[in-house]
């Protein structure tokens, strides 16, 4: 396994109280595998991503274990972690508008990454950058290298970031909603591009999104998060053909489809993570909830091969 996250808990200290943003998450990722994580806003997706790459703000507290390339990341020295970042693990953020430094050119950014991790000459750096800009289908890589971020469109910037994240051939690429800020047609292009690149590189991907359709399009496996927890995780085929958790099911029914059909909302709203509901966090919105759900927290259990669900009302033997 490339990455093993075990019983990860991340909380933020705020004026309002402690936000349990990620609560007891366990997952693993093999080489060349893509895990899509879906969840509504505030469910802890970004927090999970940031804790893997070690960029949580100082107000965050991390418990549990993250093993990557046989290193325990939670106790890694900062300097060593820094060398991993950008080299072995990379990340692409959601907002291509703000993720690039406005006062420097794209070339400088990509060159700095190369020189930091590989040393070598400026020329090598730039020629690699150029090559990768070509691979992400940026028209006129040479010109882009000497452009400032504001001179590029959102789609172009996201391509630049993708090139930067793949340039040093990392083992793990985290993409945190890389297409959410883009137009549908551009999103389609980027997803297409990612799909193509996946076949060319050795990396594994964690692909975070709130869009079930996107998750379905890119993920080998899909994990569904709700209120800081993974409530269901399975292969793409399994999860969309046989969703077991009431939340996953509700979600699928709530999404409008171009193919038509009525939507069915999930009642209520996402709970506060300062004072999450007792027991199963979904129980106040769950049509199936009973007393036990309000009291006892369900564990994530494997109910079929590779299909994990955290729900009292689902068991290995069957489902509602």
């Amino acid at each position: 396994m490339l990455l093993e996250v075990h019983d990860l808990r991340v909380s933020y200290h705020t004026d309002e109280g402690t936000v349990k943003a990620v609560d007891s998450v366990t997952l693993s990722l093999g080489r060349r595998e893509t895990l899509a994580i879906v969840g509504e806003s505030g469910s802890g997706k970004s927090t999970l991503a940031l804790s893997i790459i070690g960029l949580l703000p100082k107000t965050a507290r991390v418990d549990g274990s993250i093993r990557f390339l046989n290193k325990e990341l939670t106790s890694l020295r900062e300097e060593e972690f820094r060398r991993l970042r950008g080299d072995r693990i990379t990340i692409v953020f959601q907002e291509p508008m703000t993720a690039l430094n406005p006062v420097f050119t794209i070339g400088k950014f990509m060159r700095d990454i190369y020189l930091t991790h590989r040393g070598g000459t400026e020329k090598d750096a730039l020629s690699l950058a150029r090559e990768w800009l070509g691979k992400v289908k940026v028209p006129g890589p040479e010109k882009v290298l000497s452009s400032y971020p504001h001179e590029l469109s959102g789609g172009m910037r996201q391509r630049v970031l993708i090139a930067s994240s793949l340039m040093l051939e990392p083992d793990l690429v985290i993409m945190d909603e890389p297409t959410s800020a883009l137009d549908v047609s551009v999103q389609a292009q980027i997803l297409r591009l990612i799909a193509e690149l996946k076949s060319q590189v050795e990396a594994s991907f964690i692909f975070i999104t709130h869009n079930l359709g996107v998750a379905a399009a890119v993920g080998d496996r899909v994990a569904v998060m709700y209120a800081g927890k993974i409530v269901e995780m399975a292969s793409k085929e399994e999860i969309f053909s046989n969703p077991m958790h009431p939340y996953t099911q509700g979600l699928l029914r709530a999404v409008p489809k171009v193919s038509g059909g009525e939507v069915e909302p999930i009642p209520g709203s996402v709970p506060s993570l300062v004072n999450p509901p007792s027991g199963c966090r979904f129980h106040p919105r769950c049509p199936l909830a009973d007393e036990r759900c309000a009291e006892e927290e369900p564990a994530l259990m494997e109910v079929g091969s590779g299909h994990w669900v955290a729900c009292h009302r689902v068991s290995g033997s069957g489902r509602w």
Partner: protein
Amino acid sequence: MSDLARYVIRRIILAIPTLLGVSVIVFLMIHMLPGDPAQLLAPPEATIQEVEMIRRRLGLDKPLWEQYLIFMSNALKGEFGKSLFTGHTVSELLWPAYLNTLTLSVLAMGFGLVIGVLMGIYAALRPNTVRDQAVTSLSLLGISMPVFWLGLILIEIFSVWLRLLPSGGSGTFKHLILPSLTLGLVGAAYVGRATRASMLEVLSQEYIRTARAYGLPDRLVIYVYALRNALIPVVTVAGLIFGYMMAGAVLTETVFSFPGLGRLIVNAIFARDYPIVQAGILVVATTFVVINTAVDILYAFINPRIRLR
């Protein structure tokens, strides 16, 4: 035309109406004074004929706009008439004093910038820690400090107790130390606050997180990626502070009896030597506008996005 050139020209042209406004106000000053300007400009014992002569000589009998044009064309040549009392031309008095003040301000500014920026970064790197609080408190003390009081204290320490530095006068570098230290400390406080605030702001930006996410070392992230962005508001503050120093030097110059522009203006106010007051104020305000324009232009070099404005 490139965006940059367009921006620079635009900035420069935009400064012109401001400068014109400044000159009109300064020009109107003697007309705003209660009473007849010619009478005011005449020595107290002047006879009616003498007052009339002065009126004619200074062109005060001409229509206002014509007077203004004369005033402006002279001002552009650097001529501001004569002191009413000493018979020196105003420029003879003005430029050496201006040079002194400029020297003082530049020195103080240099000092304030270096200390302030370092302090600000130092604090911003560890927000809400003891060292941040120390810097924040110090700079708050600095901006609360009456500059003339600070001057007196420095005199008490360095001139009276330690007898190291002269308490006043001018001429040698020694004479510049205390006044520029006084101004510079206050300047450093302002710059420090601005740097800290803007550095904190910048450090919380996405692109800094991106830089970190790609493993770039702290030195690079802070002193190149962050600082370049953080400098923009600092430069603004620095421009304002420089103006403040030019003007605030009045107090410092008084405390240290430093023969600068501020003192010249204040003394001229006391002596009712209005041509000097006019010229002095015009020169400080013009410098201020020029500096702020320069700052605006500097922006565009620091941050390419601004060129588009």
